[in-house]
């Protein structure tokens, strides 16, 4: 089960992910991000506080936009990941390529 909620805050687009991202629903995440890019968003924040699990297909979604973010100068940040989920990012090495922060405050201030 995955719930995605979109918010707009001080020029940031926030996507709040709730539940689990796996192969069956990673398309939802893909669509949400694609829509933000198409809408010309300049800064995207992913709120992962309530994200319980992410599979390799979910990671693939983030991965596939890394180039786009770079090209279009989009500030993409993730915060609030649980230790378990963060571990998944780390094992794959994605933490080396993405801006991951412990909480919203640090994500906004740095």
């Amino acid at each position: 089960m995955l719930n995605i909620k979109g918010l707009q805050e001080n020029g940031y687009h926030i996507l709040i992910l709730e539940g689990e991202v796996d192969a069956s629903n990673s398309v939802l995440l893909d669509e949400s991000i694609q829509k933000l890019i198409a809408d010309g968003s300049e800064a995207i924040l992913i709120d992962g506080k309530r994200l319980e699990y992410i599979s390799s297909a979910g990671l693939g979604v983030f991965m596939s936009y890394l180039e786009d973010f770079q090209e279009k100068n989009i500030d993409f940040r993730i915060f609030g990941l649980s230790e378990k989920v963060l571990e998944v990012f780390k094992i794959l090495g994605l933490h080396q390529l993405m801006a991951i922060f412990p909480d919203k405050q640090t994500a906004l201030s740095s």
Partner: protein
Amino acid sequence: MIKLPQINFGKLSLLLAILVWLSLLFVDLVRLFGILNDIDSGIAIEFTWILEILFFLMVYVFYSNYISQNSKNEFLNLIWRVASTGLFAVVVSLLIFLFYGSLGESRLAQEPFLRNLFYHINFALTSIFLISSALLWKHLILYQKSKRVVKQWQAYEVAMLGAMFFIFFNQNTLDYSFLFGLVLLIGLGLVLSGNLKWIPYLTFKEKWKSLLFLFIILISCGFLFIQIQGYTNKTVYPVNLTDNLFLISLFGFIFSYALFSFLVTLFNLPTSSVFEQKLTEAISFQRLSQSIKPEENEDQVLDILMDSCMSASYADAAWLEMAREDLSIDFQLERFIDAKTRGELIALIKESKISIGKPDEKLSKNVNIQELRIDHPRFESALIIPLLINKIPIGRMILIKEVKDGFNNEMINIISTFVSQACISVENHRLLNQAILNERYQEELKIAQRVQKALLPTKLDHNDSFNISAYSNAADEVGGDYYDTFKLDEDRFVLIIGDVSGKGTSAAFHMAQMKGIFQSLIQLNLSPTDFLIKANSALSKCLGRNHFITVSIFLINTERKTFCHARAGHVPTLHFNSSASKSEYLEIDGLGLGILRNKLYENHVEEKTFNYQTGDTLVLYTDGVIEAKNHQGKQFGFERLRSLLEIYNEHNSKEIQTNLIDSLHHFVGGDGKIDDDYSMMVVKFN
């Protein structure tokens, strides 16, 4: 009843009838001889009557036996048989008439014996005609019988039997009791004559034929009756056989039934086509409901539908449109119409829809049968019938007529029945096809499964310095997990384990690519780092945008007792250190293959060389093992795997692997299914 086997009642009764007739003739001629010579022959008149009754009964038995053996005869055949018998009797009596005409006033013409012989022949033929006809009428009357009709017929038979014996009571005189009996029997006959249910089942042509036959029967009946009335001269014919209540009332019955049948058939002629139409509709319906056989296709069902509807509504032209999967309209079938006229009519139908147009009724309009008047030089009315499966339109049929308001409610009712039946057939057909297709896909997947299994090595390269064991299981038919080995030389071996993001068929394809890349690159004797860099660059051109592959690679050198390891985003390998009696995950940085598809990837690769000693164990696995969940939603996890290896480290690689996988299955629960591919490779150094 006494059983009389081996006796043919038909032949026996025929023989008896002939014998009875001959004795009747003999008795009467003897009596005549006595009268002529004034000698009392001593033969009572009752004797003649008994023989006459016996003759009637024998003929009855013979014919009822004969008809029951040929009960499959069609109506027309039966009527023809009656007519031919009548015709024969008429012809014979005409011949006798002609014979006497040719004799003129000669002595032979006055011969009373000859006259009586011919009288007996005439009597016999007339009786045969009447009795056989009555039995055939019985067959017709009892067609689609009800209990009431059967009772009536039985009453009639009993009454007729009584009429045979009436002659003993009445002594062959015409009195009131005779008249009373006659009226009663003819009345009963008239009541029975109302049963004419067989007539509608004749086709138009058959009706004409039966009219002809019935006419012959009427004429024969009349002729024979008049002729019989001629034998009243008491001096020439001392015994009157034919002024018999039984025969006269039979005449009445045969004649009235033939007359009724004739008239009803005649008046049924104009409506005959309607009945035939209804019969065709019933047959069409049957064909439609039977057309679900797998060898028949959808087009055949629609073909039958089209023909049935056209004949049910007497339509002049029609066509059928089916919606295809790509939403385009396909003109599946057309009858008596060309593309140009059809185009004109479609435009007219569209127009008339707008003129009725209530936008909010758009949906219901597509669902109901619609009758339209159209303004076309040739055609005046149209009926639009949507074809629906589960209330979803799959097409429409348009029937066109040259007359205004050409479709009545009966037609629309029968057409909608046809259409719904045909739609069920089409739906069944489609479901069947889908089932067959699904089965084929399943077969294909099974083939893919076999092909993929063949991609995993059956024999794992190793030497005496270590033993090795591997296991893999896919969540679906095919999966994205990969492991392999390669022998560089006697002392150096490469092990690899990989996991393609996602699962199922797409993952399986990438897994196959990974195998190709591994088997070709590894022969170049590359270091783990170089291998990963080159593999990343190769995969960058192969993988879909959101796909990546994680691998762990090991280069084991058994001479130096070392292994060189690099990790590309794969779950860390578990290592059991026998000197410390502890297991821990190998820590090394790395990035999955296909994530960074440029030169920058090189910055994210790292390799480390470790020393090993006897008793050390390596457990390579994929994330399906760690992420497997039990019923409480708890993951198997890194810590559980780590501590399990400390328990089982004493065993060889095969046993360790079996124990770990069993523990995993036990953790998930007996019926629990692991929703991801999971693999494991265990290396135990000797």
